[in-house]
Structures are given as structure tokens and as C-alpha cells.
């Protein structure tokens, strides 16, 4: 019996996760060979740590190939329609904060709210012979927000896998849904966030694949969550 825990393999997120785990008395013993993608947690037998990209973690977790994963809430919700029940969040870690937002060209002086955007989207087809387009890598979150929460039906999504904020000036989309921490990149690209255009306030989270487990594994997971939550609230 093992609990498989996946953590981000790269960048600042990896460092912050390792720090947070260490602060929670869950130090990851990194393998000697730093190209290896497996590790364990000091003093906690039965936990197998693997290093994956943040988006892989969301996918692997929901497929049940790992038990626990640390990744962004945005990725969990984007990857799984039933994220709340399939990969419930056990601990919010307080870093990796970023917002998924709707941003339009600053020059659209007449557009401040989603209701404005609804209006613009409805008129657009008549004037331009095509639907208003949104560049994003967040298909699901965009659909839920536009169609579900705001009743905006007539728009099109164009997939964007990088440099989304440049799409409006490049002419490949009219507006974007993207993740931002400070909004600086958006401003640099002459984009503004709609006043009610925050789709999700995301942060790094520990999530679990919801399933039946042995008592030993359940206890291990509880232990990890307890230590993490204590350390998060101690810091807050």
C-alpha cells in the first residue's frame, strides 16, 4: 500500500511546494540522481512522491493514477467538469495565487462589465460576419462563465497555448481569458480586466482523487493534510 503524491517538477512552483512541505514537517528526500522523477518523504513510509508538470498532475489525479497532487485550482477545474467531487481540494496552500480573468482591449471604452460584453457579442455577427472570438487555454472555465453564469451564448473560442495576451493585437482573437498575478502583462498589451470578469481566484492546492482506500492509506492522507493545514494556518 502506498499513497502516490505528485508535485510540480519545474520552476518556482516546485520550489514553493518543497518549502511548504518541509515547513509542514514533510521534507521530500530528493533522489541522488537529480534527473530522477521519484522521491520519498522523510519519516513517512508509504508515500511515493513523483514529479510531474502541473497540468499533468491535474490529469493524472483525476484519472486516479496518483492519490494526491499539488497543482493550481485553475488546472483542476479546467481539466475536470466534476472537479469538486472527483478531485476535492483538501488544503489551500496560500501561494501560486493567480486569477483567471476576462480581459478586453483597453480601447473598448464602452465595455466595463460582462453585460456590456453580452451586448457587443450579440451585435458582432451582424457587423462582422463572424462571432466574437476569445483566445484562451481555458475552454471549460470560459464556457462555464460565459454560457453558464452570464448567459452569453454567441461567441467562439480559439485555442491559445501560449502568449494569449498578444492575441488581440495580433488580430487572432477579439478578447482573452487568461491567468494573471499582477495584471502587468495585460496592461503591457493594452488589455483591461472587466469589473465582474474574475472567473476564478486560483492558488496552489493539495487535492485528492476521491475513491475508496485502505485504512492505512486514508490515515496517511489525513496525516499529510493535517500537517499541511497546521503549517498553512501557522503562517497565516
Amino acid at each position: 500500500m502506498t499513497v502516490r503524491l505528485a508535485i510540480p517538477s519545474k520552476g518556482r512552483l516546485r520550489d514553493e511546494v518543497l518549502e511548504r512541505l518541509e515547513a509542514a514537517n514533510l521534507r521530500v528526500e530528493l533522489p541522488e540522481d537529480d534527473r530522477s522523477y521519484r522521491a520519498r518523504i522523510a519519516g513517512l513510509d508509504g508515500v511515493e512522491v513523483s514529479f510531474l508538470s502541473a497540468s499533468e498532475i491535474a490529469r493524472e489525479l483525476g484519472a486516479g493514477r496518483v492519490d494526491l497532487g499539488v497543482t493550481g485550482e485553475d488546472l483542476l477545474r479546467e481539466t475536470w467538469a466534476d472537479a469538486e467531487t472527483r478531485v476535492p481540494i483538501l488544503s489551500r496552500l496560500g501561494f501560486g495565487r493567480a486569477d483567471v480573468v476576462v480581459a478586453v482591449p483597453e480601447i473598448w471604452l464602452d465595455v466595463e462589465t460582462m453585460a456590456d460584453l453580452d451586448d457587443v457579442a450579440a451585435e458582432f455577427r451582424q457587423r462582422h460576419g463572424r462571432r466574437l472570438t476569445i483566445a484562451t487555454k481555458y475552454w471549460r472555465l470560459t464556457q462555464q462563465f460565459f454560457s453558464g453564469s452570464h448567459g452569453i451564448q454567441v461567441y467562439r473560442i480559439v485555442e491559445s497555448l501560449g502568449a494569449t495576451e498578444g492575441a488581440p493585437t495580433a488580430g487572432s482573437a477579439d478578447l482573452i481569458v487568461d491567468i494573471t498575478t499582477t495584471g502587468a502583462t495585460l496592461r503591457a498589451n493594452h488589455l483591461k480586466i472587466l469589473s465582474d470578469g474574475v472567473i476564478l481566484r486560483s492558488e496552489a492546492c493539495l487535492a485528492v482523487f476521491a475513491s475508496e482506500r485502505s485504512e492505512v492509506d486514508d490515515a496517511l492522507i489525513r496525516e499529510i493534510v493535517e500537517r499541511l493545514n497546521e503549517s498553512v494556518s501557522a503562517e497565516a
Partner: protein
Amino acid sequence: MSALAAQVAAFLAARDAGAVDAAILQPAEPFLDMAGEDLRRRIFLTESETGETLCLRPEWTIPVCLDHIASQAGTPRRYSYCGEVFRQQRAGAVEFLQAGIEDLGETDTASADARSLADAHALVQTVLPDQSVAITLGDQAVFEEVLTALGLPRGWRRRLVRAFGSPDQLSAALEDIANPVKRGILAEEAGEQIAQSDEETIATLLRGEMESAGFSPSAGRTPEDIAHRLLEKASLASLRLPAAELRALRIFLSVKVSLERATDALYAFGRGAGITLDGAVEGFARRSDALREHGLTLAEIRYDAAFGRPLDYYTGLVFEIATADGERPLIGGGRYDRLLTLLGAADPIPGVGFSAWLDRIEAARGGAA
């Protein structure tokens, strides 16, 4: 072919509508373009080797209309179909049989509407002879006429028409125009500046700013689009929907009567609200007369003034037929006068049609046995 499908096909063959077929694999673009991105998660998408996005036929109206446009067939013309459609569902089957009739190009709207509903009703009577059914009817044209007669500005009318058929959206829209939220400071400054200018001056200003920021003034919303809407918005910002008009709209939307009494109820509503309703309500009355001539009992059809579909190509009649105790409709239908233009028809072609869910009918037959 199941017994039900055979029975439905025989019914359709006797209804003076040419049977059409359509490929199961369809280009996805027209469906996503018409119904919106929300459809994406409810259909089965795939890709051709050349990168074209294809889908398993999710419904019949759009393929029938596209085929009509491509074949440049003369109008008026009626088409019938019976075949599989495919939808993603969390539970239950993903492949269903749908059958229906689309009536394209008939300019006598009232009579084409009535014929469509009468055909749908006759279909249900044929396949579910022993069941009592509930028919609900709505009409967006009447709603639009009420908005115009109440003297609402165009911007508000458009917003309300868009929300028509979705109770949540509609009450949110009404709330917004009855109690406009205070706008941001930036917008107020812009508002004061623009109030002094005309559309052309603003557009010129915007064009300069767009170019210096690196936006193409022709790729998407143009400086003229923005200037135009900015002025329209500024003119609406100082307005709020007067209480009397709001009350009248709420009263209108709560009208739910039998079709037998509906025309009188609409005229009575108009008198109460102090407005004159003519064209759309006259068409409504003519359609009711035509329905009676088809042998339908108007007392058994329910008119719900708030019933509609929040998609921009529906324009008038909508209806649903369900079993008396059923939650999901067995048949849905409506008028879509804007659809063929949106799909690329050179001239406007009016259209009305209905579609029957044979799986639901089958289930209702099982339940009756």
C-alpha cells in the same frame, strides 16, 4: 428500423414534405456558430486529416437548411427527416432518433406556424394515441412588440429580447435597467468627454489610439463600432426603466392562459398598460384561427408569454409538446427566420419546424403499456 421509427417515417411520408438525408459526419463550424460554444461539450467532435473540425450530427435543422441553401432549391419547400443524432450525456444513451419537418420559405407565417404545430400534434396522436399531452406555446414577436409599444430604447430592447426564454437572464436584465449600477469613475470621465463630441470625432480619436497601441482598426471591433456604442451607452446611462413600464413588463411576462383566451388576454393587457398592440398580436390571432381550422382544441394549448428560446435566430413562435405528466418535451419546435441568413443564404428565407425525440416517445409508449 424499430416499429416506432417505421411508423414515424410513414407518417412523415404522408405529410407533403420531401424526405431528406444528411451525412452523419458534419462540419462542426455551423453548429458552434449558431448555438454557441456551450454546444461544444454536448456534441462529439473529431478532426479530419486536414484539420477541419467535424462532429457527429447533433441535430437536423442546420443540415437541412444548409442543404437547402446549397441546392438553391426554390421556396416554399417542406423537408422531412428521420435519423440519428448524437449528444454527450453524463447518463443514458448518446445516440437518439429524431424526426421532424422543416418548412422553408413560406411567407404566410401564421399558416406555416399553424401547420407545423398541427403536424407535430398529429405525429404525437399517431404514435401515442391513448395519451393526453400538454402543449405549450410562446411567441417572441409578441414580446418584441410589447417592448416597442412601451417605448423602450433600442439598447434595452435588444438586451431583453436576448434574455427572452431564460427566466434568470431576463430578471437580471430587468433588474439592471430598472436600477442601473453606478459606473466606474474612468467611465464617467469618458462619459463626460464623449457627451461633448460626435461619433465621428470619437471614432477618429479611437482610431489613433488603436493604431498606436498596435490594434488593427479593421480586424475586429472598429473605432466606429466603439464610438457608436459608447454614445448609445452614455445616452442610456442617465435613464432608468420607469416603474410603470417595469410593472407592465412583469404583468405581461406572467400571462399564462389557454390559447383560446390568449388573444383577448393580450389586448386586455395592452389596454391596461395603455399601449396599442397590433401587428404581432394580429398574427398571433390569425395563427390561433389557423390552428382551430386544423382541428386543434385551443382550450387545451397553454400560452405562456415568457416562453421562448434564448438563441438569436429564433424569432417568433416556439412550442413544446410533452406528456401530461412528463418533464421533458417529446417535441420542440419554433420559427427561426434569421437562421438561413446566418447560415449564408443570399436572401432572407423564413423557416419554421419541429423535431421529435423518438427515444422519449418510445419511453412514453412503454410507460403507457
